């Protein structure tokens, strides 16, 4: 059909993606790179700081975009995103308990290397909330109920977090607040490998879900008569989203807007609604957007890094506004 068209578009995306990786890793060192004289510091900076950051940016971009695509299709809601299942609230609750709650009882919790306290707490919180939503879903089949449950859980978590913020000393509150701004720098080389494993598992699972997502576009009844086992499909989609989103929240904090905006950007660029094609498009676009956010946060002010969420909001909000205002771009009924 239009496979030539797709080829060209994907080629451009791959080129842009590669270019951004190059910039993210070698920014500021180009002259030395081309004259083949990287200093020792530059080498250390690249291997110890920039590569983990870049990998974190790419992984979170991929994970959030693909799970955002899944949630938007499953719930047939263009404003859905990876956090509708309450995953980020669970992570926030876990982290707040560790950074603020534990300080109230006097325990300091660290952990080492890949399994630092915050990562574990966040992952545990995400997992807990995911399980709650899952079991609710198994009892109540209507997807809208799951959305509502996610919202309620999120509110409950926020309430607890607020209480903790209120009664905790400033230093701990600041620690927590900074976590909520998202950070690509908190991933070190050990964590990077664990992060890669989790996202890879989520992505591999997602590969098998694109066909059923296509059938689910028309609702549960059509999906069923076209041959989809709807209940199983939902469980697997939730699992995949949980893996992808939960790992991003655990390692980078709750990065905002990427999961909601990028699937729409991808759909606009690619022009198809076929998940088999959108899947790869989202991987590339998600990576590109997060790399762009990473690069922007570093080059705007040379000495200070801006928090990731600020940049993703600046990119994501106009996209969503544009969508809401031009209804013909949304391909959901």
């Amino acid at each position, binding site marked *: *059909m239009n496979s030539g068209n797709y080829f060209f578009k994907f080629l451009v995306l791959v080129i842009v993606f590669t270019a951004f990786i190059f910039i993210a890793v070698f920014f500021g060192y180009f002259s030395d790179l081309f004259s083949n004289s990287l200093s020792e510091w530059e080498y250390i900076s690249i291997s110890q700081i920039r590569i983990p950051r870049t990998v974190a940016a790419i992984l979170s971009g991929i994970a959030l975009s693909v799970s955002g695509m899944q949630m938007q299709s499953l719930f*047939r809601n263009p404003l859905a995103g990876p956090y509708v299942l309450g995953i980020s609230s669970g992570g926030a609750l876990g982290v707040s308990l560790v950074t603020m709650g534990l300080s109230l009882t006097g325990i300091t919790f660290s952990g080492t290397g890949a399994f630092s306290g915050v990562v574990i707490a966040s992952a545990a919180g995400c997992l807990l909330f995911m399980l709650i939503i899952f079991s609710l879903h198994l009892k109540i089949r209507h997807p809208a109920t799951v959305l509502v449950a996610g919202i309620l859980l999120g509110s409950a978590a926020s309430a607890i977090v607020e209480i903790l913020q209120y009664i905790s000393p400033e230093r701990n509150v600041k620690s927590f607040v900074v976590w909520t701004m998202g950070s690509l720098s908190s991933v070190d080389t050990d964590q990077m490998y664990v992060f890669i494993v989790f996202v890879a598992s989520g992505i591999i699972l997602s590969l*098998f879900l694109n066909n059923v997502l296509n059938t689910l576009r028309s609702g549960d009844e059509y999906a069923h008569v076209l041959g*989809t086992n709807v209940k199983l499909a939902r469980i697997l989609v939730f699992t995949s989203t949980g893996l992808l989103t939960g790992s991003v929240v655990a390692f980078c904090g709750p990065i905002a807007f990427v999961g909601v905006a990028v699937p729409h950007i991808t759909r606009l660029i690619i022009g198809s609604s076929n998940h088999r094609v959108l899947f790869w498009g989202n991987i590339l676009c998600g990576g590109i957007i997060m790399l762009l956010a990473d690069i922007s946060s570093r080059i705007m002010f040379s000495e200070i890094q801006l928090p990731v969420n600020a940049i993703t909001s600046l990119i994501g909000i106009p996209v969503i506004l544009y969508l809401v205002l031009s209804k013909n771009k949304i391909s*959901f009924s």
Partner: protein
Amino acid sequence: MNNILKISELRTGYDNAHPVIKSPFSATAEPGQITGIIGPNGSGKTTLLKTLCCLIKPLSGNVLLGNENITLLSPLERAKRISYIMTGSSVIPDIKVSEVVEMGRFSGTGWIRSHNQTDKILCENATERTGISHLLSKRFHAISDGEKQRVLFAMALAQNTQVMLFDEPAAFLDIPAKHGIYKIMHDISRTDNKTIIFSTHDISNAIAICDKLWAFSENKIESGLPEYLGIKNVFSMLFPDNILLFDTEKMDYVTTSISNSIPVDIKGDGTKYKWTVSLLKRLGFDPGCNISAVLSVITNENDDKWIINYNSNQVIVSSLAEFEEKMKCVINKQPL
């Protein structure tokens, strides 16, 4: 190949306390046959269709397709044998028409595979058979209702199943579109030997194209040849309250005559005569009378005149509009 759809002692509904189909229903549908489901709203037509594709589980009884119990199949296996198109098209997202048709191939590709040559060929064939090739790159909701219905037909065709179920496929369609749909159904059943089952409110067309009818009334379901059901006077008893009568001339329902219709004796033949009779009926006259001393009308196929005799007065008019005016005077008991 035993591909017969066999329904045995089926009772079904949304829950046990309120079954929609209460008395056990048994019937068969064979390859190459078109079966029509008719009856009033709420009588269970959609419920039956949904049960036949397992969107609803039977309360008792079973459905076999070629000796396989369909409820025991996995959704994927079932989708290879039975397809179903629902009424309306609003749940279909606004994606490209080509992508709608391609959705029908899910039962072929399964969860993992992408479209191969076979899938592509089936989609192309379905597109040609339904005549929507020129619509493929358009968005689904940018085309007309008739075109949408044909696209959904193409999707079901691409699914390549033995049994094809349609819930009111011709609803909301204009007459040419409606007949287009019926023609496609006819083609599919005869050429591809598929088993077609559809529900409709359009009784006269159902009688014309169905090999078999399942007539749903409040208490039971009658099945058989349309003519057989006609002879048994099933159609008249389908809708209670006696507001409707089935007219075997028109092969359709008519409202029972309004009382106090004025008898008129009309003579003539040809199309002009028939349309004049229709006008008189609509105005409230009863043209069935052969002798009326008070009022008579004579028309002639070859000229433009109507001769009206009323109360021993004769008036000749030369247009239908004048004729209507005069007849209204008769109703109002005014002189012509």
